[in-house]
């Protein structure tokens, strides 16, 4: 590594120590001074086109852009001088003269840098009365992204994202002067696996999310930091909900995992994982089909059934938390010490662009669940499925996953499940698998629970409840705890924090961790990286 040379600058009269090669905008940000900007993005090349970050540097006749100016020893930077404030006001005016100012119908309103900086740096009535330039409205760029040319300030963040991050080059600037606009290359569609990130980095309302558009004003959203349940990368996200419904996922910056980005598959996976009609009543099979029952009756039936029918296969979802996995393993072993116990696993091949963020393994907590002891006697998930299809088990406990169709052989699995003496399905929705169950237990989904996930690389990260589970559905952990209780193995720990504490006592790799100090960005296992195969 190159040596880091310290450089001292004077920022608005205060000494700031930074390092050689740092730009003024970054040095300022690091010391808590936010220099307004549009085109600058820490992960993209310097464009220098918005001119919003112009600052004054002592002994330099012209204002300089903070994004492209490297610090120098003794450099005195003024970020709030009269000249700087005047130019910010001027740039804001320039950016707004041809803007439609259609905030009431713009999805970006509330999180728009034009709005924010206008309030901070301009606050004047428009002096422009000579006819705005019109541009294309609602232009579809791709399956997830729609463009409004009139709102665009040509910062080119989206163009640079597609050039530099995904390297897919779908977008370009076309035309000249105030008719400059962003456009797709001929025949191109903005459908790369990370396409919707351009919406996140668009500082204005030019690029909006076709999925989220017109659903809810952003100021009504309740934002919960959490982890994407889409795959085992464990991207940090903000789950944003309105009226107890997940409205969107947004990436949360975590340089150790996902930087500033999330993939489109993860971004929209909540529709599948949290959507659909929820199960809210436990059901048991009687002559003629599944009928509603009480939790007590359902759990009693599970206890009786699991006690009688063996051998038992138990499959846990990779979206279950470490705490749930820990309790599940204990619970299953309580009923059947030699039960086949595996985490659902489904991998796929990825393209180069997908590999930027996505993991082959769709289960966000596959590694964690296995480390909690879910992964024994089955020979791996695929082997267990083969044995299940071959009729090797007489009972099964399936949590949170659709088995029919999971490995391509839906009819074989369906036939095998139909022949089971006893099948428990614990899920959020009435799946094809659940329809064959003897007992169906309604559960909470990833967005309704708290706990931890361990990603592919061995990073333990906190999942938080963004919405409340419907009445009648229980947390997976509560179901496991009640079954443990019924089986005569009542646990002293109940909350995720308490279960995690038990994990740190019993699972060696987790022994140095503390639930409350995992932090918003997660913490690495002492045993370190390396994916669990």
């Amino acid at each position: 590594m190159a040596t880091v040379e310290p450089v001292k600058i004077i920022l608005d009269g205060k000494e700031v120590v930074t390092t050689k090669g740092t730009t003024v905008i970054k040095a300022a940000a690091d010391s808590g001074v936010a220099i307004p900007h549009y085109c600058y993005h820490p992960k993209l090349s310097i464009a220098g086109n918005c001119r919003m970050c112009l600052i004054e540097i002592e002994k330099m006749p012209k204002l300089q852009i903070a994004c492209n100016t490297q610090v120098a020893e003794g450099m005195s930077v003024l970020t709030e001088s009269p000249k700087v404030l005047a130019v910010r006001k001027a740039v804001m005016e320039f950016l707004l003269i041809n803007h439609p100012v259609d905030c009431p119908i713009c999805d970006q309103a509330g999180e728009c840098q034009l709005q924010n900086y206008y309030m901070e740096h301009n606050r004047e009535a428009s002096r422009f009365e000579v006819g705005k330039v019109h541009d294309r409205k609602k232009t579809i760029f791709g399956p997830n992204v729609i463009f409004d040319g009139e709102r665009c300030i040509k910062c080119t963040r989206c163009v640079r994202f597609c050039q530099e991050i995904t390297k897919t080059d779908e977008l370009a600037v076309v035309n000249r002067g105030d008719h400059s606009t962003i456009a797709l290359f001929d025949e191109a569609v903005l459908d790369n696996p990370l396409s919707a990130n351009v919406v996140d980095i668009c500082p204005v309302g030019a690029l909006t999310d076709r999925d989220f558009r017109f659903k809810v004003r952003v100021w009504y959203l309740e934002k919960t930091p959490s982890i994407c349940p889409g795959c085992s990368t464990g991207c940090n996200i903000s789950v944003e909900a309105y009226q107890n419904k997940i409205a969107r996922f947004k990436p949360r910056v975590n340089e150790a995992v996902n930087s500033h980005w999330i993939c489109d598959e993860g971004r929209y996976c909540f529709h599948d994982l949290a959507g659909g009609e929820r199960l809210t009543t436990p059901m048991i099979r009687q002559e003629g089909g599944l009928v509603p029952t009480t939790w007590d009756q359902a759990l009693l039936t599970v206890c009786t059934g699991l006690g009688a029918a063996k051998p038992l296969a138990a499959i846990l979802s990779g979206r279950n938390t470490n705490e749930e996995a820990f309790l599940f393993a204990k619970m299953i072993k309580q009923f059947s010490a030699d039960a086949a116990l595996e985490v659902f696993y489904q991998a796929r091949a990825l393209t180069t662009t997908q590999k930027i963020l996505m993991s082959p393994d769709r289960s966000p907590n596959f590694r964690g669940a296995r480390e909690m002891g879910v992964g024994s006697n089955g020979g791996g998930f695929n082997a267990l499925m083969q044995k299940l299809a071959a009729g090797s088990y007489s009972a099964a406990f399936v949590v949170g996953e659709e088995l029919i169709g999971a490995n391509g052989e839906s009819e074989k699995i369906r036939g095998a499940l139909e022949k089971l003496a006893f099948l428990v399905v614990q899920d959020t929705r009435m799946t094809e698998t659940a329809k064959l169950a003897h007992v169906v237990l309604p559960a909470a989904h990833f967005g309704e629970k708290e706990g931890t996930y361990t990603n592919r690389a061995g990073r333990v990260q906190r999942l938080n409840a963004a919405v409340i589970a419907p009445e009648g559905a229980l947390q997976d952990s509560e179901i496991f705890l009640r079954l443990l209780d019924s089986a005569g193995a009542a646990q002293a720990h109940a909350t995720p924090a308490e279960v995690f504490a038990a994990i740190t006592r019993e699972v060696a790799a987790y022994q140095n961790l503390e639930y409350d100090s995992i932090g918003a960005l997660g913490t690495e296992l002492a045993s370190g990286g390396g994916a669990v195969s």
Partner: protein
Amino acid sequence: MEKLLLRNIGVSGSHTLATYQSRGGYASWRKVVDRMRPEQLIDEVKASGLRGRGGAGFPTGMKWSFVPKDNPKPKYLVCNADESEPGTFKDRLLIEQDPHAIIEGTLIAAFAIQSHTAFIYIRGELVFGTERLERAAEEAYRAGLIGKNIFGSGYDLELIVHRGAGAYICGEETALLSSLEGGRGWPKVKPPFPATHGLFGCPTVVNNVETLAALPWIIERGAAAYASMGTEKSKGTKLFSVSGHITRPGVYEVEMGYPFKKFLDEDCGGVANGKKLKGVIPGGGSMPVLKPEEIEKVNLDYESVAAAGSLLGSGGVIVMDESTCMVRAAANIARFYAHESCGQCSPCREGCHWMEKIFQRIEHGEGQKSDLDLILNISGNIMGNTICPFGDAAAMPAAAFIRKYRDEFEAHIAEQRCTVSR
């Protein structure tokens, strides 16, 4: 005065290699390759005092010396033949009538920075000029003046004539490089500068046609001979393209420091048709207009014109007589810059069009009293705040027209029509 730059103009067949060589052409190139070291050549040009003729007037030898010698990347020399400044047509004359002088100058400059690939980037509209340059390059290649192992020296140099697509902004050196790279003709943010990170990220020097065309003479006669002409800081001679209401429009070569008034009245025959002078733009459309009283004591050199409040620029002299409507002239210039703004950075993209729209409104009798201060304010907000000098080029003339002919603008607004009798 002896003509340096125009010495071959008007000679029959001046564009051919045979004629050029019969008049001593390529002797300087031979001298450079045979007998000079690059540092020696740079020192010679530094000593001559030659300054960039594209408009900025930056010392040429110094520009060359910024190219790092220890950089392992290839180095490029680019001749900027994208002459597009309104009122400027001096390079075009050289391109069409004396292409070999440009090529010889380009080769000499390339040698100075030890470049092995040189480009001539020519304005898209100059179709005839492109043909002439291409043919001249072909002739020079065939004569062994360009190519591998020139004059048996072991020095290789390729020359590529590249025709642009006709954007004014591509005359700005970093936009030119973007265009030459095959990209959109957008100026690049500086630093880094072309001397270290130019064409394809390699050390690059961009020199104007007229600058390069002066090199063969300087090498032939020596730096001292060149430096003996002109003023203390503005050496040698300069081309001026004179247009507008003038008796003898055309391209003139003038020793630096020549009196402006004398130049217009005597050399160019004065304002056409005996009319009175109303204003003159000394350095191409982007430079502030000067009123008759302001040019009384101005000489044609960088310092004197700057002291008068304008700039020598490209030497594009636009003469306007008393019948000129300054509102219309300003609107016309504003329209050009609005049309040519590349659109990359906010102040220029938005501001140029905004100014143009207000000028047009005034011109069409719909102006408001507050419009003049508004334009001055907009131009002030553009000045110095853009990626490249284009913003200044649009802002300077707009402000100058209003400041200097404010009465006429106010009358135009009040009367809602043009008040200049024609």
